[in-house]
């Protein structure tokens, strides 16, 4: 009862269909002997172009489909088809171009298509890899659990910091108040906070040399273990944020690229029909 993946869904049904499409198109391209060198304007070029344009529309439909839950059918099925036909689309579009590229709107449409594909490939890669990493990272805990534990540690750290000399206490307080999980896109993606105050506090507490009395030393040792614990929690929390960003961010490229490439495609078709 192994679960089928996106790629292997329904015994590779979509892989087979898309593969067949690519094979037929390639064969036709190889056998075609047009009077002029192959390009989008030969009969085969037109045919490939029309099929590719229809495929683009089919790909766009996923955006609607995944938000509609009333009807029948299985979203995994649609997503699997989207992935395979997306890859096939690039082959078809390339054959359609007859490898004629230049500084024009046609090539722009083609390049946008490639960029969209690249983001999609990243997406598939992320969907295949990241979920397991997320589980390995968090285990049975949730993100909220980690934040709660961090908050509890902060509470304890505050109490202990009161007994330390001002300079040392201030380092701890900075760790309590200025440690950040998440932030802007790149910060989220990186899963790090440069100059993390908690990291700094761990290092500072580790350095010996402060003139501390016995009671203060006890607090310092306690604080050191609290900060160490907090740091390891922070690493996991930030990693979780990074994983989620990796699962999500590419869609912010993929969808606008889709819109842009459709716009370029419209321009490409209009130009073709107008200037023929």
């Amino acid at each position, binding site marked *: *009862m*192994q*679960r*089928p*993946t*996106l*790629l292997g*869904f329904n015994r590779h049904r979509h892989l087979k269909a898309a593969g067949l499409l690519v094979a037929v198109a390639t064969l036709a391209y190889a056998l075609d002997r047009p009077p002029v060198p192959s390009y989008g304007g030969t009969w085969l070029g037109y045919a490939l172009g029309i099929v590719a344009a229809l495929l683009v529309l089919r790909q766009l439909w996923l*955006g*609607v489909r*995944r*938000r*509609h*839950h*009333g*009807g*029948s*059918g*299985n*979203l*995994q099925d649609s*997503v699997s088809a989207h992935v395979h036909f997306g890859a096939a689309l690039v082959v078809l579009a390339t054959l359609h171009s007859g490898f004629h590229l230049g500084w024009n709107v046609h090539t722009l449409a083609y390049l946008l298509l490639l960029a969209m594909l690249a983001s999609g490939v990243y997406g598939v890669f992320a*969907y*295949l*890899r*990241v*979920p*397991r990493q*997320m*589980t390995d990272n968090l*285990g*049975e805990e*949730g993100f909220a659990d980690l934040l709660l534990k961090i908050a509890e540690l902060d509470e304890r750290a505050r109490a202990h910091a009161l007994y330390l000399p001002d300079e040392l206490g201030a380092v701890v307080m900075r760790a309590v108040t200025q440690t950040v999980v998440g932030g802007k896109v790149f910060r989220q993606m990186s899963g790090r906070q440069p100059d993390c105050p908690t990291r700094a506090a761990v290092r500072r507490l580790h350095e010996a040399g402060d003139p501390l009395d016995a009671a203060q030393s006890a607090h310092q040792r306690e604080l050191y273990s609290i900060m160490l614990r907090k740091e390891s929690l922070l690493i996991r929390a930030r990693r979780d944020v990074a994983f*989620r960003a990796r*699962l999500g961010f590419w869609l912010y490229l993929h969808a606008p690229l889709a819109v842009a490439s459709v716009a370029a495609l419209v321009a490409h078709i209009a130009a073709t029909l107008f200037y023929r």
Partner: protein
Amino acid sequence: MSEPVTIAIIGAGPGGLSAAARAAALGVSHVLLEAAPHIANTLRRYPRAKHVMAEPAALPLRSPLSFAAGPRETVLDTWDDELRRCGVKLRVDARVTAIDGTRGAFRIALASGETLTAAFVVLAIGLQGNIRRLGMAGESLPGVQYQLDDPDEYQDETIVVIGAGDAGIENAMALTRHNEVILINRGEAIVECAEGNFNAAMAALEKGELECRHGTVVEAIEAGEADGFPLRVIANTPQGVERIRCHRVIARLGADPPRQLMESFGIAFPNADLDALPRLGAEGESSVPGLFVVGALAGCPLIKQAMNQGQDAIDRILGSPVEPVDEPMLKAKLAGFRHASSVAASLLEIQRALPLFAGLSAAQLRGVLLASTVRAPRAGEVVFQRNDYSTSFYSIVEGDVSAHVPDWETDIQLIAGDFFGEMGLISGRRRSATITAGENCTLIETPRRTMLKLLSVESVRRRIDQVAIRRAIHRYIGLFLEEHELDHLARSARIERYEAGAVLFREGDEADGLYLIRRGSVTVSRMIGGREVVLFYAAAGSYVGEMALVSGKPRYATVRAVGGSEVIVLDAAHVVWLASRHPDMRRQMDERYFDYMQAGEEEHRLATETDAARGQPENLVAFLMQQGIGEATDVLLIDLSLCIRCDNCETACAETHQGSSRLNREAGPTLANIHIPASCRHCEHPHCMKDCPPDAIHRSVGGEVFIDDSCMGCGNCMTNCPYGVIRIAAVNLGYRPPSLWRTLFGSGTASGTPPDGGCMPPKAVKCDMCKQLAAGPACVRACPTGAALRVSPEAFLEYARRKVDDGARPSLAG
């Protein structure tokens, strides 16, 4: 002395009101006497807005007054209004102190000193006028009370509630909101209350909102200011005498019939018990001719029954024949019945035909039939299919049916007087056979709920058990046995019940028998590497304990009940002897023995390897059992190695269920990349169904447990569900899923915002497995990566085992 009346009705509760309204409607001279300053005194003391129930639902109302379930205020207002309109002669503040005389000439003395005369008396004073008092020093101190009108009246007090029955617990729970409450319970545990109240009390105790002293008897209550507490309750606890300081004592000790008063009227009682009810004739007439008793004192504590009795009493006094209120309904039900002419004759016929119902009283039988349906299927019609999830119970009055099970060579014939459907009733699992009707067949189909109540009748329970044991033995192990061998084995069998976690037998024990599971499920475990590893899970319909019988050695493994379970235990020597005579039976047991040994070895290997490879001490099957998978029929689980955390499952659930999701993806336990989100598991014996006042929770033929529109939002199911998957939520009637336009461009009605239709009062919502959608559960279909799946526990265990075995291999690539 005022003008004589024909009928004097004493007590303006439901029974008295109904009687008076009937008398007024018929134009008979009457008077309705009420001791309190208003009608329906007991109902008026219910907490504000308390839902008044109109049970039994199937019973029609026979009264000039109307009555339907609803908030206390609505019921009272309706009665006030209708009484005014129908011209009832009501006298409030008229406490009756004495009645003497007999039919035709009763003299009724009132507390005011006035005396009335009446030809007949209807006594409808109920029990609540005589609530039990503490009967000890301090019982009448200020601050010691015997009822609670408005719990919000008290704030920041320490209140001792004495009595852990329904009234006591309800009062205590209502008071915990603003006060510190100590509940005093005479017993060792809370037992004398409805399940909903029990669970509420347990939850409050666990959270520390309520304190409880079990096994405690109050000896006295003392007054005297100390540290701001005006009262001290002297309580004898198991630990010794405790003085509990408090502001207030509320004693809810129940009520007794006002015996002394009634005996002074000349009414006789059957025995000396404090709770004995007066001896009444068939028509409700007491030992005093002309004095009729209705309502709780006549053994009918429910409002609707009392109202019906009130009207009937007046009709009988006036000499009109009264047929029982359920007569027309029964007549309609029994219309299809071939031989009988009248309802009474049909009932006799049924009772003669069905030994199962022979021990029931006439009233019980009428009740059962009222809830049942009489069916006359055509010859060849399928009554139910194997693997259906229907739950009703059938008795054959006439004709015959045949039971078909695929692995049987011949079908089994059942004839008039037999019953079927008892396996589903007991196990809560799918039907084990397909039943087809024969010629001229008449069946009585009784709903599960009614049958379960009937099981408390000893004669019914015994008879069903006898037949069920024999059938279970035949069905699961005894296919090869002769009739007399089967009978013999069945006679020597006994039924054992086990609580969740209880041990049926232990590894190394002497083998005492073969255990046939007929309800619930068990785990089979062995000590491997110094700890207990669960090898298998066996559910109702399979058996355990045959390994030791086959090998002749001590028990091979330990068997524990997963949930509450029932087992038929067959005597070991007997089974071994039979197996020696029947090579087929022996072979069947041997095959199972080898299968189990192999599977056990496999499990052993996995358990040790998994530990070594992953350093994970948990036992996966044990973990799953802890999460209640054993009693589920369909679990939603999420493979975390595929889940991209998009929450599309929740969104899809919300959109297909009026905008509120019935599943919480993130909540719930996780092990080895398998996550069990908080979502209904559609248990075999759903905990939620146990205590639903309007009987709104059902199981459909497909197995889905769902809540219908009659839900009134009481929250019992939510408290009863051990998995926390039921919520009380406002249902948005006007909800529409977002349109295509909105999907594409983000404008238009936002999903989940109530449009003009507004929201219904809150109701219980839970997963219904999208039974309205032909394509199946939306959560699973909306998952883009196939991480969400719904499986039965057997398949779940299989899947989970494979996941662990996969180890570190990324499953998406696999």
